[in-house]
C-alpha cells in the first residue's frame, strides 16, 4: 500500500477547514486538523505532517508567529492561506519562510496545485532533482543549462547576459515557487543592494523578450503582481 502524504490543516473556521480537508482526502492525501496555534504546534511535533496549510488569522496567535517558530527548527513546507490580500502581507509571509501564499477566496484546483508543488520541493531538498542529476532544468521548450550557464529555447541558445542568466537560474532552482523581489535582489546583488526593483524589472523585461514568444503572455516567467516572480514548473 502506498504511504499517503499527511497534511495538517490549521484553520479556525470550521467550514473552510472542512472543505479543504474534503478536497485533500478526495485527492489522496491524509489530513489532520488544528483549530488554534497552540494545537497546531503540538500537532506538528506529534504527527510529523508532510505539509502544513496555515491560516494567518488564528484565535490564539498570529499564523506568522507559528511560521517563525517552526522555521527555527524545521523546513517543513508551509502553504499560507489567508484573507489578508495586501501584497505586503504576502511578501511578509514568503520572506518569513512560507513556501506559498493563497489568498482567500481560492479555487480547489489552485490549492491542489500549490500543495503538489510544495510537497515536491521538500522531496528534493534544495532546488529539484533534475538540476542535481543532469545539471539542467527543463520546462516546455525552455532548458536552463547550469553547467554551461546558458538558456536554450527550442534547442537554441538565447544569449542571456550574466545577470539575466543568474535570475533565470535562481527562478529555475525554485521553479513553481514565487520568489519575492527582495529575495531575488539579495541573492543576486547581495544584501546591501538598494531597495529599488527597477533594475530587476528591466532585466526581467529583457529576459522575457529573449525567451517568451510574447512578453505580455508569458509561458514560463510569471509575475505575481506586487510580490515577485515565478518560473513555470515542468510536469
Amino acid at each position, binding site marked *: 500500500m502506498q504511504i499517503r502524504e499527511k497534511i495538517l490543516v490549521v484553520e479556525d473556521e470550521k467550514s473552510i477547514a472542512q472543505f479543504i480537508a474534503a478536497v485533500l482526502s478526495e485527492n489522496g492525501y491524509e489530513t489532520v486538523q488544528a483549530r488554534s496555534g497552540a494545537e497546531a504546534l503540538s500537532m506538528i511535533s506529534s504527527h510529523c505532517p508532510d505539509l502544513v496549510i496555515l491560516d494567518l488569522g488564528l484565535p490564539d496567535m498570529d499564523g506568522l508567529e507559528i511560521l517563525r517558530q517552526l522555521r527555527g527548527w524545521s523546513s517543513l513546507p508551509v502553504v499560507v492561506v489567508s484573507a489578508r490580500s495586501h501584497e505586503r502581507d504576502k511578501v511578509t509571509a514568503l520572506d518569513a519562510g512560507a513556501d506559498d501564499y493563497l489568498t482567500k477566496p481560492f479555487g480547489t484546483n489552485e490549492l491542489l496545485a500549490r500543495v503538489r508543488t510544495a510537497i515536491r520541493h521538500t522531496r528534493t531538498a534544495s532546488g529539484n532533482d533534475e538540476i542535481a542529476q543532469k545539471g539542467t532544468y527543463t520546462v516546455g521548450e525552455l532548458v536552463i543549462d547550469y553547467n554551461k550557464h546558458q538558456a536554450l529555447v527550442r534547442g537554441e541558445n538565447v544569449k542571456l547576459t550574466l545577470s539575466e542568466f543568474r535570475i533565470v537560474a535562481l527562478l529555475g532552482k525554485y521553479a513553481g515557487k514565487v520568489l519575492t523581489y527582495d529575495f531575488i535582489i539579495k541573492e543576486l546583488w547581495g544584501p546591501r543592494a538598494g531597495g529599488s526593483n527597477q533594475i530587476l524589472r528591466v532585466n*526581467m*523585461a529583457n529576459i522575457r523578450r529573449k525567451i517568451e514568444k*510574447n512578453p*505580455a503572455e508569458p509561458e514560463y516567467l*510569471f*509575475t505575481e503582481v506586487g510580490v515577485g516572480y515565478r518560473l513555470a514548473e515542468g510536469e
Partner: protein
Amino acid sequence: MRFVKLIAAKLFPISRRDLFVTAGILLCTIMVCSVVRRAGGIQGFAQPVFVLAVLLISRFTTGYLYGLISVVLSVVCVNLIFTYPYWAFNLTIAGYPLTFFVLLTVSIITCSLTAQAKEQARLLAENEREKMRANLLRSVSHDIRTPLTSIVGSTSAILENPGLSEREKRELLENTREEAQWLIRVVENLLSITRIGDEQARITKEPEAAEEVLGEAVRKFRRRFPDISVSISIPDDLLLVPMDPILIEQVLANLLENAAVHGKTTTAIHVSLQAEDGFACFSVRDNGQGLPGKNTAGLFDAAAQPRAHADGDGKRNMGLGLSVCRAIVRAHGGTIDAKNLSRGAEVYFRLPVCKEEL
C-alpha cells in the same frame, strides 16, 4: 496653551505660496505706482491702488496673517514712496490714520469672507462625498443581494429536495459557484476603494513594468473565461509606469470582465499597451454588442447607471466596476474613456509615465 497655538495656527497659517503671492502683488503695485508717479500722476493716486492690492492679497491667501502684513507694508509704502515728501516717513500727514484704518478694514473683511467661502466649499464637497458614498453603498447592497438570493435559494433547493436529479443538482451548484464568484469581484472592487482612501486619494506609486501587470490581468481572465480569445500587443521597449500595480490590475480585470459579461456576444478581446508622448495608453477592445446609449460620460458613475433596465433589476451592473476604474485611474493622474466601435466597444485609459515632482 495648546489651544491658543491651535487657534493661532488656524488664523495665521504660514505658507511659502502665500508669501510669494503677497510679495508678488505688492511688488507689482509698487511698480505700477512708480510708473504713474513718473508720468506725473496727481497727489494721492497711490492709496486706492494699494487698497486694491490689500484686497487681492487678502482674497488669495489663507488666514489673516498676510492680509495684515500687507496692510502695514502698504501704509509704509504709501507714506514713504508715494506721498510728498518722497522718501521720508511722515506720520503727521492728515488722513494717514484714515488710510491705515481703511486698509485694515478692507483686509479683515476680505479675509473673513474668503475664509467663509472656503468653509462653504469644503462643506459642499463633503456633502457631495457623503452623497456619493450613500449611492455607492446602495449600488453595492443591490449588487450583493441578488446573487446572495440565488446562492441561498440554490443550496436550500438541493438540501431540501433529495429527489432532484444529479443533473439538476449540478446545475444549481454551478449557479451557486457563478454567483459566489461574482460576489468575489464586488468585494475586490470594494477593497480597491479602501486602498485609494477617500481623502485626496493618496496612493503609493512605484515604477512598474506595465506589460507585467497587463499580462497577469489577462492570464487570470483567461482562467475564468477560457472560451473568449484574448490577444495582446505591447510596445517593443519596456514601459515603466509609476503606479500601484494591484489597483491597475483591478482596473484591467474590471474592463476585461465587462467586455466579456456586458458585451454579451463577445468572442474576442484585444488588449493593447502603447506609449504616447508622456502617457502609457491601455486599451481593451471587444467585439460584443457595444455600450448602451450614446452617452459615455455617465457610464463611469455608479449613481448614473440606468437602474430600471429592460432586463429586470440589472444584477450585472457595471456601474460599480467602472466607477472604481475611474477612481483608480484618476488617483494616478490619468484619464479614462469609452467609445463604441463599428462592432463592439473600446475602453481606454492613460497613465502619466513621467514622474511627478515630489
